């Protein structure tokens, strides 16, 4: 079903709109949630449902003229999954000890946490390619370095180097703007 039709349905018939939105974009949301919540099936299902309920709640206040339904849903999914992850982390300290959610480095963790903030997005937007895509995939979508390397046909070392240099550059730019990570 076309995005415009889904948006109209969300505005006029919540049940049908949610069904069609989930049918079309549920797989995308699941893909994003899995990267953050791993094999927590029930949490992933809750997260998918929360994502589309959030879309439904905000459908009247968002300008979809640019056709950013996919991007918008991906963004909600990512933030919803992080919130659930943080809740799980608070409730179960032994959870996520062995997964690859983000690196243990504080800076990476902070970038991941703050990467939806406008200033960080502005800095990432100014990056050239492929660094920009690498950063978004790593810190916004939490893809593994190995997977990013495969997708962009780069070596793992190249991706690691670009992330390392990019982080240093970001840190410098943020400090210049009076923000410390």
């Amino acid at each position, binding site marked *: 079903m076309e995005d415009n039709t889904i948006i109209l349905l969300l505005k006029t018939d919540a049940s049908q709109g949610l*069904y069609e939105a*989930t049918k079309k974009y549920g797989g995308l949301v699941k893909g994003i949630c899995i990267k953050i919540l791993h094999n927590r099936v029930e949490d992933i299902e809750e997260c*998918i449902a929360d994502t589309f309920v959030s879309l439904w709640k905000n459908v009247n206040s968002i300008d979809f003229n640019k056709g*950013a339904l996919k991007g918008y849903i991906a963004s909600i999914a990512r933030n919803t999954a992080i919130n659930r992850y943080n809740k799980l982390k608070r409730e179960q300290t032994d959870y996520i000890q062995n997964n690859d959610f983000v690196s243990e480095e504080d800076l990476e963790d902070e970038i991941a946490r703050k990467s939806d903030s406008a*200033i960080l997005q502005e800095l990432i*937007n100014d990056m050239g390619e492929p660094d920009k895509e690498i950063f978004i995939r790593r810190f916004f979508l939490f893809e593994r370095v190995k997977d990013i390397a495969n997708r962009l046909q780069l070596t793992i070392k190249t991706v690691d180097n670009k992330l390392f240099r990019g982080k240093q550059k970001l840190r410098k730019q943020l400090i210049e703007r009076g923000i410390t990570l």
Partner: protein
Amino acid sequence: MKDNNTNSTDNLLEYLDEMEIDSVELSKDELQKIHKLELEKIKSKKVKVSKRFFNWKISSGLVAACFVLVLSISISVPKIIEHIDQPTKIVNPYIEYNDVDTAIEELGYDAMVPTKMPEEYTISNVVIIDNTILSIDYETASEKINYRTSEKNEDISGDFTIYEDVKQIQIDNKDITIKGNHDKIHLVSWKHNNQSFSMYSNQGLSQKQVIGIIENIE
């Protein structure tokens, strides 16, 4: 004018829109289960709103509320009775029409439509979407073209697929954007005389076919 924050958010959303993001297919059972969860969450949100409203009423003073209630009932009862006889109005974003002329009449302006389509294509569906977009399906036994027009100054195609090939051409002094993959044109859009137009073909059209259709829109 947008501020920097909005711009950077828009940029990220647009970037995500165009990115290939890994997708994991939902099974039919999963889809049903998640949809059930969504409906429960919507229901619980409505209940929470009701509870908050009830608490507020108590704290505001039930006596005053009752007084206002009695007063307003005495004024509005005749109007309520009058409304009971009227049918509930449900807004339907899709209204189907038997023919194009009736739909254009309903639309309220002289909408331009194709007068000549490739051979074997016949009109299969005429719809007005959201009171503003005229949408006409032309079909053969196996193929379909969706044509849309509106006075809205926005993308009315409803197709946000990222295509490999995007280019601008001129037909009849109109700047036309064509999008497609592998030499097939799937989406065509343009603006003319403050009206927006789009044409979508799932199976893809040739440039010659597109030009033939657009040259005969009146």
